[in-house]
């Protein structure tokens, strides 16, 4: 059965259905509906909802709940995510699974509350200090947002790597019909023998990201990077739309990805052979399929709500085999399909 839900609400409901029972937050626009939904619904499922004194506290509560073995989540928007970055680095270092939702708004600084994609670097290149990665999933519809939240919990538990949902204000605020995924059963959550449950009949468990010995710490990080390589091999996700005969392919994710879908349709109506490549995992980035595409498509036009962040990964993947122009908007301005189409027409003619 389909229900009409806001992106923010659908992500909250999906988290509950994924077995998230500990949620910690600090209010910020434009993700307020996620917080409100959790406040109303999570306690009814026997879960913990706690409004923390700051984003810093909230992410450290997530660290604690994750260490205790719970499926746990926090959500925020860009400035709040910056504050959470310290804790996210610790989660990554201590190999704790957790889900962080970033409903992006325009920055830097206080910026504004309009949708933007300026946190791509922060999400995919580390964000906090040290050598680590996050699994980063970028939904482009409310339906996909719900599904990717469920997936984020699974991947995070499987690899013991924190996962981030990189959404934006538009996706968080908009309503769409959504077919909610079935709730998981508690036995579907993998066992966590490393969790802090009390050292009864076993040696004590320690959850830590600390090791003073560089050689030992190097081995810990090498093992971690082995996991990252495994994730890169197994978990790359993307979508291609009308790329088969395309002379130009738009590369866009999230909200920009769906807007570009409209651009493709309009272009096709006008006889222009345009397609769309939409990364779903931003890390691991779908470099290989993009490289494949660059062998037969002369122009890969990256479109972002930023000054060009994912664009760097696109160029790294393409390595000069195709033209890689960029079109972006800043400050929370969302380009309309017509505006993007005019840009497309600079490169292809019907």
């Amino acid at each position, binding site marked *: 059965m389909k229900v*009409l839900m806001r992106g923010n609400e659908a992500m909250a409901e999906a988290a509950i259905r994924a077995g998230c029972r500990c949620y910690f937050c600090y209010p910020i626009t*434009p993700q307020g509906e996620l917080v409100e939904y959790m406040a109303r619904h999570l306690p009814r499922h026997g879960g913990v909802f706690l409004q923390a004194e700051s984003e810093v506290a909230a992410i450290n509560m997530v660290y604690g709940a994750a260490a205790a073995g719970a499926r746990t989540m926090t959500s925020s928007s860009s400035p709040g995510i910056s504050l959470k970055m310290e804790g996210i680095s610790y989660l990554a270092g201590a190999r704790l699974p957790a889900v962080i939702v970033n409903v992006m708004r325009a920055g830097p600084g206080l910026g504004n509350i309009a949708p933007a994609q300026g946190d791509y670097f922060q999400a995919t290149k580390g964000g906090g200090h040290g050598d680590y990665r996050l699994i980063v999933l970028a939904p482009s519809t409310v339906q996909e947002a719900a599904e990717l939240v469920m997936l984020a919990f699974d991947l995070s538990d499987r690899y013991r790597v924190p996962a981030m949902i990189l959404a934006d204000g*538009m996706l968080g605020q*908009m*309503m*769409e019909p959504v077919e909610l995924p079935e709730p998981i059963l508690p036995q579907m959550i993998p066992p966590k023998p490393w969790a802090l449950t009390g050292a009864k009949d076993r040696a004590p468990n320690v959850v830590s990201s600390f090791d003073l010995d560089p050689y030992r710490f190097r081995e810990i990080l090498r093992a971690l990077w082995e996991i990252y390589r495994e994730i890169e091999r197994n978990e790359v996700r993307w979508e291609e739309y009308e790329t088969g005969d395309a002379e130009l392919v738009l590369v866009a994710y999230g909200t920009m990805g769906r*807007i570009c*879908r409209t*651009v493709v349709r309009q272009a096709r109506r006008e006889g222009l052979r345009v397609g769309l490549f939409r990364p779903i995992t931003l890390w691991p980035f779908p470099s290989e399929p993009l490289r494949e595409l660059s062998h037969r498509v002369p122009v890969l036009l990256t479109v972002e709500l930023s000054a060009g962040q994912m664009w760097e990964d696109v160029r790294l993947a393409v390595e000069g085999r195709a033209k890689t122009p960029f079109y972006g908007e800043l400050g929370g301005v*969302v380009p309309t399909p017509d505006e993007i189409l005019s840009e497309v027409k600079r490169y292809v003619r019907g």
Partner: protein
Amino acid sequence: METGIVFAGFGGQGILLAGKVLARAAMEEGFEVTWLPSYGPEMRGGTANCTVVIADEPVGSPIVDTPWILVAMNGPSLERFSPRVAKGGLIIVNASLVSQKVERADVRILLIPLNDIAQELGEPRCANMVALGATVRGLGLFSLDPVLVAMEEELGTRGREKLVEVNRQALLRGYSFLNALR
């Protein structure tokens, strides 16, 4: 098929609700649909608008360059959105509050005294549903029945029978207004 409808007015005029009811009805009728609100720091009293896109394939852009229908509940909304309405589209103007003329010859224009009708019905807050009734008629994608159901679901039924009834009347008035015009 992809049709965009923009509802715009003051915060507190029920702009977002009108859009939600339409979106819900469209979903129940089997269409793909998105509802996108403007959101700002103002909780009340500022400007508000929302865009509903109804389509027969998954909706791409939830924002539209050229809406097919504009519901302008106040003057500033008319000024801001009327230049964008698609050729041959429809602008529903709240004649109770808007005095300025619409400078478009290539669209249909429907002047409805939304607030006066709502006042007549005894519930000033239901002007939005009068507008929605007219919108549904102008849209011509489905009948008013799913909209009446969606309105009831959005408002909730617990102890709100009177409110539901007056909104029902409002939807019917709006729907028949366009009828009478023809």
